[in-house]
């Protein structure tokens, strides 16, 4: 009987593992080659080569709210009332070499950090800001809030 109970536990654990696996995989991607509907209008304007945009653009504070963008993948992050949303995405997929744009707006001072790429997007209360960079390394990279240390989404570059 003791054994059957541990068996039950085992099944429950494996089920939990399986669920977590499917969960993250279900997450929709914000456009890999083609822009997805949730993207902002400004994103997919020019399908020119990504290399035409300088990849070193670390200070978004100088960027106006409607940047002339050549991004292939864009994700909109909103932080309001302590809730963080990346347009419903937990995983955002991009192909290596694509330009990724992160647009953020927050009701408190925050900053978003892209691990691995080591990019930071400073957000001032109520002001939209954006960050654009070239996804040139394959892997999964966490994008987190600096102040509250929460996961915003994972950037999956394949």
């Amino acid at each position, binding site marked *: 009987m*003791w*054994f059957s109970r*541990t*068996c039950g*536990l*085992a099944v429950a*654990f*494996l089920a939990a*593992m*399986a*669920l*977590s*696996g*499917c*969960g*993250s*995989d279900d*997450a929709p991607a914000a456009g890999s080659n083609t822009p997805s509907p949730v993207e902002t209008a400004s994103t997919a304007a020019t399908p020119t080569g990504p290399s035409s945009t300088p990849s070193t653009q670390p200070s978004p504070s100088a960027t106006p709210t409607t940047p002339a963008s050549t991004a292939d993948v864009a994700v909109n992050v909103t932080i309001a009332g302590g809730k963080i949303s990346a347009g419903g995405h*937990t*995983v955002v997929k991009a192909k*290596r070499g694509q330009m990724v744009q992160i647009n953020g707006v927050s009701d408190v001072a925050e900053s978003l*950090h892209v*691990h*691995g*790429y*080591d*990019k*930071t997007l400073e957000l001032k209360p109520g002001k939209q800001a954006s960050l654009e960079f070239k996804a040139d*390394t*394959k*892997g*999964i*990279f*966490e994008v*987190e809030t*600096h102040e509250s*240390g*929460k*996961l915003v*989404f*994972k950037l*999956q570059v*394949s």
Partner: protein
Amino acid sequence: MAIVMHAGQVAAATPIMVPMHGIGGRQDLPVPLGLAVTGAAVAIALSFVILGVAWRSPKYRGAVSGKALPGAVTATLDSAGLRWTVRLFGLAVFLYAGMALLAGADRLTNPIFGFVYILVWVGLVPLSLVLGPVWRTLNPLRTLHLLACRVFRHDPRDGLLQLSPRAGVWPAAVGIFAFAWLELVAPDRATLLVLQTWLALYLVYTLFGAVLFGDRWFSAADPFEAYATLMAKLSPWGRRTDGAIVARRPLENLDSLKPRPGLVGLVAALLGSTAYDGFSNSSSWIAWAQDSGYSATLLGSLALTGFVLFVLLTYSSATILAGRLSDSSRTALPGLFAHSVVPIVLGYVIAHYFTLLVLEGQRTLIYLSDPLSNGWNVFGTGLLGVNSTITEHSTAIATLQVGAVVIGHLLGVVSAHDRAVALFPRSRALAGQVPLLVVMVAYTVGGLLLLFSA
């Protein structure tokens, strides 16, 4: 692993981000579903083939086996000169890292984080696989204890108390759990204060124990040494019962692992924590945990404990059931089969940490040139960049990950089979192997699921 290091420029003076979770600045891509399913199918099918067609009499002879190395090689390896050179090297590395720990800057360019979490904890695995049981000699705390004993003209084997034989390696299993908690759960684990506190406790635990119980405490309680010793059993190098240093097949070497109390706890802590590392990186767990309202530390501690207990319970009940099915001793069986989990641990470790070791290992070697963040370039590596070409080969990485889990599983099955035919009566040997095989298949499918879900 618990610590994020940035793949950007080496000397970047960006504000330091303390990661709240996650294996590192970069995680491997999920393995393709087809590859994971193929791996699982191969693992299951070959397991039953091994069970059905493999040898019926034990093949491995453990500690009495092996081909002795030439006398001159053994003499050199056992010479006091070489031993002391290795000991002093270990001590020098320890003191150098200690400088970064005590006087370095509290930021991720301090090499101490990569030194402890990557070079030591992950690096001891390939080191032990290639060179065998060298950690005992490298272990700086052993050397400090030995030197102190020399000064006081005291026999290092003698302590104030006798360590109960029932303690076995339980103290090391506790140490491994404590380290896993530090690297995977502890709040602010990539800050100097937390690492200093943990290492201070480790130092006291290990050295105080050595004073109490003599130097056998190191093999019983030092988590790094216990882990390295376990992995060295998969190297081709061992010592025969007659004292000769020998070369032997890795699985035969593994067969020489002495069952001791706590060995099951040790392998469960290693396998469970590695699985938890993969699980805690899944975005659904992170999303659930951070929106649950409970503290991340509490949830992480519970989940880590759950994974380790899960391995402990499933493994123990499978081996106890095996004893019942084969009319053998039940209480001794978990310990007698524990060695067969070691290859499974190795498979998990390779799958989870291979690219991390390659990328963050390089970065740590670069940072090590400037231990105090004041512009030194001690080893001339300070201005090098991390070569991240490996990240481009995502198919090769995925194949390696799945291959490591599957091969680790098969080596585990073979080891357990050989032990089973040695222990069980011939008529019951087949039935007796089924419970453990089922559990091993579950570990492997679980491991592949973790790689697939990433």
